[in-house]
């Protein structure tokens, strides 16, 4: 199962530990994203896999063989850089052909593979263009073709879409996923954009300050965040204080005028974490007042002031009448939609 394996990898620059205790196994053909805020060590980790940086500790293995002793030029990985790093003095075709030339692929086969790869990324007919004469999206496709043409064992993408405008980015996401599925190339994507990570990946590695916060499928990380950091970084979330009252039997979990049967194990002050789209307006529950109401096409976004502090609520635009600004409402949710933490626990 494990194709690429990182085993307790760490990287230090001087006294600063930038990546620590990073363990991950990636299956063949899998699409894994490293997701985290800027400066959390994503690029550093990727560059250690690529061989541009040596790990301070730990091992990196590809198909069971130690990768750290292999020269970067011999690793056979495909890399797309955030800046694309295209060779500006070469045409698109020459850029893509470079890796094949280094591998001494025969001239005719080389030409055919370059043509086919450029066609695959939707750049047929652009062979003779220089990078400066291409749009950002086209340059990005050349960079992708250049990395893919050598049939890399692993494709490493460092924020490849962050320089594109929103619409193009969405198009490229879909295309990237399709290409990756068709080729079955094991892929690692670095991104700070949670939507990108969720829509592209089989699994997401959420990182913070050089450490892994959670590894899981997009759905797992979104619905069952392992820490407050993950729940806040992946989409919007409401965190607020509640208490568990064990004096009554059975015990109750109480937040303002909302209450539910207490789950086993916890007592005293707790923190409730709930996604805004899981909260509904009802007849009973947490008393709140709508402060602002924002229409966003397919959904409404409500900013509420409740007994437990300010909260956001998202409702589908399903044609139902929605409460107006200033209106008093009751907020309710199903206990299984929230997650509970003892107050003060970071994780």
């Amino acid at each position, binding site marked *: 199962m494990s194709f690429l394996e990182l085993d307790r990898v760490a990287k230090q620059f001087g006294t600063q530990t930038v990546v620590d205790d990073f363990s991950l196994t990636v299956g063949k053909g899998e699409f894994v994203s490293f997701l985290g805020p800027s400066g959390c060590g994503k690029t550093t980790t990727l560059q250690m896999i690529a061989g541009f940086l040596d790990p301070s500790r730990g091992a990196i293995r590809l198909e069971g063989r130690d990768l750290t002793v292999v020269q*970067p*030029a011999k690793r056979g990985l495909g890399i797309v*850089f955030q800046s694309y790093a295209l060779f*500006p003095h070469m045409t698109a075709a020459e850029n893509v052909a*470079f890796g094949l030339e280094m591998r001494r692929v025969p001239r005719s086969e080389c030409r055919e593979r370059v043509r086919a790869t450029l066609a695959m990324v939707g750049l047929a007919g652009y062979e003779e263009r220089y990078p*400066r004469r291409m749009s950002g999206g086209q340059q990005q496709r050349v960079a992708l073709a250049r990395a893919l043409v050598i049939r890399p064992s692993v494709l490493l993408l460092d924020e490849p879409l962050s320089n594109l405008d929103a619409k193009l980015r969405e198009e490229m996401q879909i295309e990237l996923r399709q290409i990756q599925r068709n080729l079955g190339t094991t892929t690692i994507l670095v991104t700070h954009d949670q939507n990108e990570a969720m829509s592209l990946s089989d699994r997401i590695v959420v990182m913070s300050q050089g450490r892994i916060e959670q590894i899981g499928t997009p759905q797992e990380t979104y619905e069952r965040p392992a820490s407050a950091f993950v729940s806040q970084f992946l989409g919007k979330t409401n965190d607020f204080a509640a208490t568990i009252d064990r004096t009554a039997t059975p015990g109750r979990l109480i937040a303002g005028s909302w209450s539910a049967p207490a789950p086993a194990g916890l007592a005293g002050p707790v923190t409730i974490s709930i996604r805004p789209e899981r909260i509904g307006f009802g007849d009973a529950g947490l008393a709140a007042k709508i402060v602002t109401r924002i229409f966003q096409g397919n959904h409404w976004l409500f900013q509420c002031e409740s007994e437990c502090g300010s909260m956001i609520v998202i409702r589908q635009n399903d044609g139902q009448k929605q409460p107006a600004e200033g209106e008093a409402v009751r907020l309710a949710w199903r206990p299984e939609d929230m997650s509970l933490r003892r107050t003060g626990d970071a994780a």
Partner: protein
Amino acid sequence: MSAAPTTDGRDARTAWLLTAPALMLFVGVLVIPLAMTVMLSFHDWGQYKGIEPVFILKNWHEVATDPYFAEMFWRTARIALLTTLITAVLGAPEAYILNRMSGRWKSFFLLVILGPLLISVVARTLGWALLFGGNNGLVNKLLMSLGLIGSPLSFMFTETGVVIALAHVMMPFMVLSVWAALQRVDPQIENAALSLGAGPLTIIRRIVLPQIMPGVLSGAIIVFSLSASAFATPAIIGGRRLKVAATLAYDEFLNTLNWPLGAAVAVLLLVALVLIVVGSNALIERRYAEVFR
């Protein structure tokens, strides 16, 4: 943008008014003396009659036919070309290495390289004379006392000496020019080539060099034109025995006092340089227009 058509005339007048001081300075200190030098080159001169303001081609004829002048100009071209080559061959790697150094060392060595620009050319050239000047030169003395050489290395009054000293003086210009080109190179580009399987030599030859070539070439233009018109270094190292165009013109002006002939030499040097610089610049621009613009 917002200016209505009626204000165009006033805008143009304001523009002229604002540029007037600079324009007057330009005309006053460059155009007028230059025009006068050109006129001067057509005047006559005699040992006893001095300068005669007539229009004759005598000086130009002399410069064009006397092999003495041809030799001077060829020597000037040769020295400038060799100097350019040396600065390019040494300066480009120097800039590349400098660019790869980490923070503190980079600024230190940048200072070492640019520092000499703060010292007068005369002082720097005299340094060479102190090291290699005949029997009393420090290096010559040392090498002779070690028995490594029998007679002093000839440096003063040789073309080799002038070229070496000029290359030393001109090096910062080349390094700066290549350095500027290197700043525009994507810092990840070598990693990109590396990941595609290229070795270090291939990366330099196929990826780095082509990208800094415009910088090397513009540095070469600067160094060539400065070396061809250099005065202080050839005057100190080459002296009277090894004249180049600039020292020749100087001698005609101040020793022979044949100003018109000196003017002809100076104008010819200027015209040749302008043609070479403009020509090679146009060539470079055309060659790299597609890629770097």
